């Protein structure tokens, strides 16, 4: 009895140590993840134009939602066209997401089933896009967009975003496809299913978790973008939230609180997508 208790003592102590360690790590991760977001709220909740930054406050002294109202009702300076810009961002984001999913899943289906000497060429063509830094392609793209008749259109941005997101999407899809058993589609093929039917009825349903991840990735790529939008979209009616916020950033006289409120609103669509797709993504991550 005493012997086993003495034996258990160091083990219990070690367990406690591990528990304390993971609780501490959890706390650090919590603070790490939320500090910049807390800072956004700190500024957005200030009723006085966000001057709070220069008053040395670390929590909102008198929080108010005025700034959110100013942003949503487009009353703040710079935010007169917030909903137009938000709509443009959403248009670019959703189109990039849908096109990336469609284009990459078609390509990955072809790659997975096609055994020929062309396969590595096709797979590598995508990665060659990453050879030049993305921000370098923007300079020639600016010229080429005119040649394509896409100058100052959202489709120039969407095309560039899809070209950036799709190669990685194909990598993800191909590796997930290897985990999916091929027996099912061999059986379907013996039954005379066409490639189109295989893609629609077998490939797409089985690949849902990976497709969800790819969709989230593509939306976030488009949502994060500033350079492509700034260079390729020149007219007022095409401006996006990113362009507006960057413009505001350089103006020392701007209303920071309304700007941060707009930033928080802008963060919502990807979060909503995350919640919607969580069911699928957790199937990948457990």
């Amino acid at each position: 009895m005493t012997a086993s208790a003495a034996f258990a003592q160091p083990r219990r102590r070690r367990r406690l140590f591990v528990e304390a360690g993971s609780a501490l790590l959890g706390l650090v991760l919590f603070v790490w993840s939320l500090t910049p977001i807390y800072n956004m709220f700190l500024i957005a909740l200030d009723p006085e134009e966000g001057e709070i930054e220069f008053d040395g406050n670390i929590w909102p002294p008198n929080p108010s939602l005025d700034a959110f109202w100013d942003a949503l009702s487009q009353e703040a300076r710079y935010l007169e066209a917030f909903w137009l810009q938000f709509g443009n961002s959403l248009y670019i984001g959703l189109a990039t997401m849908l096109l990336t999913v469609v284009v990459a899943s078609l390509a990955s289906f072809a790659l997975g089933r096609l055994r020929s000497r062309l396969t590595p060429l096709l797979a590598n063509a995508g990665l060659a896009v990453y050879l030049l830094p993305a921000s370098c392609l923007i300079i020639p793209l600016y010229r080429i967009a005119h040649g394509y008749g896409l100058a100052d259109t959202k489709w120039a941005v969407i095309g560039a975003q899809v070209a950036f997101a799709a190669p990685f999407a194909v990598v993800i899809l191909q590796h997930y496809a290897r985990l999916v058993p091929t027996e099912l589609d061999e059986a379907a093929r013996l039954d005379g299913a066409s490639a189109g039917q295989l893609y629609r009825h077998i490939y797409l349903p089985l690949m849902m978790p990976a497709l969800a991840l790819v969709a989230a990735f593509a939306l976030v790529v488009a949502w994060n973008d500033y350079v492509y939008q700034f260079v390729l979209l020149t007219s007022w009616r095409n401006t996006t939230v990113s362009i507006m916020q960057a413009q505001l950033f350089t103006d020392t006289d701007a209303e920071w609180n309304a700007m941060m409120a707009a930033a928080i609103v802008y963060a919502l669509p990807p979060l909503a997508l995350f919640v919607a797709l969580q069911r699928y993504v957790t199937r990948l991550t457990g």
Partner: protein
Amino acid sequence: MIDAMSSTQQILVARPADDHRRQSGRRPSWRRAELLWAAAFAAPYLTVLLGFGLYPAAVALWMARQPALYAELFAEPLYWPTVVNTLLFVGLAVNVKMFAALLLSGFFMQRRWWIKGLLVIFVVPWFIATVQAFISFHWMLIGEYGLIDQVLLQLFGIDGPTWFNDRWLALACNIVAYSWKWLPFWTLIFLAGRRAIPSEIMDAAAVDGADGVRRFTLVSFPLLANLYLVCTLLATVWGFGDFATAYFVSGGTPVNTTNVVATLSFRFAFDDARPAIGVAAAVSALPVLIPICLVLMRRLQTRDMQL
């Protein structure tokens, strides 16, 4: 010990062989009609790649073809400090972030309610748009009134530094901000990779008496090594293209000492209206990027990579 590890090794050895047998052969050969289908399926992808990736890349190389451009570029006073910054930024941000992501994915493997909840919060930074998040970083760190310095002062009584007055501190801020943004994404990828490791392998290792560190170095790391390498190379390539961090977090302060190649080439091309030298600045990263892309292509060809 050697005897004890054998059951783990048996499973480790058995699996790739099994996979290999399944993948080679037995696949009905494609007929011509099906090849046409495959070509049709790949066509949209190739069109986008050619139109918005490879053709602009070719134009970029053509614009930057003259050796004289590089002589001019190397003589620019801003160029060499920028190269140092870029190498530091990419080298540190990518490697620290990837290694942290690999370790954290192990932490998030635990199936406890609070760790699952924490994962949701941990992923949020990836979904906050770059521009907005980095502007928040900028204000958080700006001068003595920023949130970080105020927290240091009011809660801990420490006089924080003026982050953006020092080149190395400002660079460190960029690295931290960039890692903050991308850490969750890579953690998720590694988490998916770990989940794909069959549980019988980990169970066998545990039965053999391997502790946490040994399970990591002897079992999960070798299985994740290829994924880790591929992701690190991809992150490196993307890191070279990153514009937003240097532009928004440090803004190049103090006085243009924290630019990276991406912001410098943008500045040459659009602020100074010298597109050719802007492209040349970016093209000068090719000696680093070509080997990375070649290794990446080779690695992605290997059949046994798991995700």
